[in-house]
């Protein structure tokens, strides 16, 4: 679980976002990229809660 205050928007988990985009094999538009990124951040902060 990651605390929200430790997340730097646009920096935290960008590697993971890049991996996901690469896996799609297609350039992604900014809107879908932002949605993917929000999903990743959401998983990060809620991971601990879901486990609990």
């Amino acid at each position, binding site marked *: *679980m*990651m*605390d*929200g*205050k*430790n*997340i*730097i*928007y*646009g*920096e935290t988990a*960008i*590697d993971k*976002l*890049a*991996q996901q*985009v*690469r896996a799609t*094999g*297609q*350039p*992604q*538009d*900014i*809107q879908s*990229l*932002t*949605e993917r*990124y*929000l*999903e990743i*951040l*959401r998983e990060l*902060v*809620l991971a*601990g*809660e879901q486990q*609990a």
Partner: protein
Amino acid sequence: MTAVTRERPTFAGTEEQQALAEEIYQLMVAQGRLFAFDAPIRQTLQNLADFYARQRQMDPAEAARLIDEALRVNDHVFARQETNGDVVFITSRRGRYIPPQVDTVHTFKQRLYEPENPLPVDDISVVVTTTRPALTTVEPVFISEYWQQQAGLIPVVVESTVETPVEAVVAAPEAAEPAGVSAPLEEESRVAPPVEPAQANTVIVLPNGLQIDLRRPVEELMAQHGNTLMSQLRMAIENDPLRRLVIFGNQAFPEAALVSFGKNDLRRISEYIKEVGEPLLDTQIIADIFYHNPRQSDYEVFRFALNYRLSREKDFEFVGIEGARLWSVRNLPAIGTKRVKASEMGQLAGYIEEGFDDSLAEQSIDSIRKSGQVSHVLTFFEWEYGILPLTRALAALLPQPLLADQRSAVLRFELPQHYLSTLVELRYPTGNRGGWVQGFETLFHDYLVPGALITLMRTDDPRTFAITYEEQEETQDRLLVLDETKKTPKFTFANISYACVVDTDMLLSQQQYGRLRNLKAFPMNERRKADLMLEHVFEIIGAPVGTRAEPKYAASFETLFVALNVLRPASREYLTHLLAEGDNFAPDASRPGWWFYTPPPSPEEDEEPDDEDFDDEE
């Protein structure tokens, strides 16, 4: 240096056992004479028994029993260990063996990571530097548990010494159970204290200060803060020094996965564009140079890579729009007139950026976007140079730049009534310099006249637009033209035939605007001084209502508007501003829409009129 004193152990047991224990002790100390003072000296019972039995000529088993008994009695000297059935006795030169205990209560490592009075941690980035290495390697950074707890990354571990509240057990219904049962319950509560599930902090703060709760669904966040989230992510990606993701237009992809283009590839692209003589689409470049097929699975990535690489090359310029990515190169033939330099035109159209744009007075942006067309009456300046200022009405029709630093876009305009088309360059406004569209010169001169009512409209192709006009029977008239055949360009009237519907007030016929032949064809760099141009225009087109000593001119607003637009583009709102702000202009109270201009007296000119008067009288 402190001297180390050697203790003499005392031995217990019977005399025989004492003697035996001492003998074995001396034997083991001799064996470990080079050992550290408190280093363990080990010997197995088997070895000792063999030695003792051989020396005393007795049964090894009996020897082993005697030794074991003797050393067991002296367990303060010999520590006994059993390992895999073997008995090992341990002592040291000190006289007893004390297992070493490493003191880890105060270590330098611990003090370094867990200072007694740590600074407050608001952000983990205070502890872990965000400075990136020059090499693109991501190395793990160790953060001690202490700091992770401080930053809330991991929960704080509850010390095992904390007592479980007895009240909880007593107050529980099980408290009524017999005493025999309560004891294990108490133990359980000590071992596993009830842990409250940690409430996650799901609120993140964006660089612009906006707080986002990630507990909310993504669709909801995008609906409410979509633009901010997208622009902030875009900014972060563009500023990422590691370039993990790169952006072209509205698309992103990891740079590491992009195809690379060498100098030879770039040279071939450049030569091909020059050969064709006009900007080319990325798809055309891919098909004609790289023979890449749109049906190939990596086509879109290849296309993205090409666009991204070209955008980083100085020799190439992006002149496309969304849906048509066009590339141009240096030294390609210029589109449009060369008589007006870009820097001059930017200043001439600057009034639009200053807010004097009235193009939306008759058409709203919504209606333009919905209908996809804009109507416009051509002025002399626009007709002569084939340039249309990029008013807000025109900007609503034409495409926006795809890249942030995009200077221009190349579009195609068709004249369907004559099956013609031409390339035009759309120059976007920058700072206080206005934008414009150039390249209509031939089209306007061949089929239209100043005052013609034209309609610009979109087509199905995003980069192709159409110009139409309403036709009428061919008419011939003497209209104003700029004669540039001589050394000094001058305005004159010439016979021109036209077959388009015109706004007669804007038609610069000799009959209506004959005085305009006296207009001075100022160089472009002087035409940016709108106030001076208006004064000159007023003197030429205005009716003289003063005297020779005190000249004064009167002109209607519409006449001034038409005449000023011969020298430079100007909107009605801008003209109103110039008239209202100019010291020498005054409205005619008796005639609405008319203005007076009183030229300022100049000392040099004061005498000249007198001379002229004298000459005239002669």
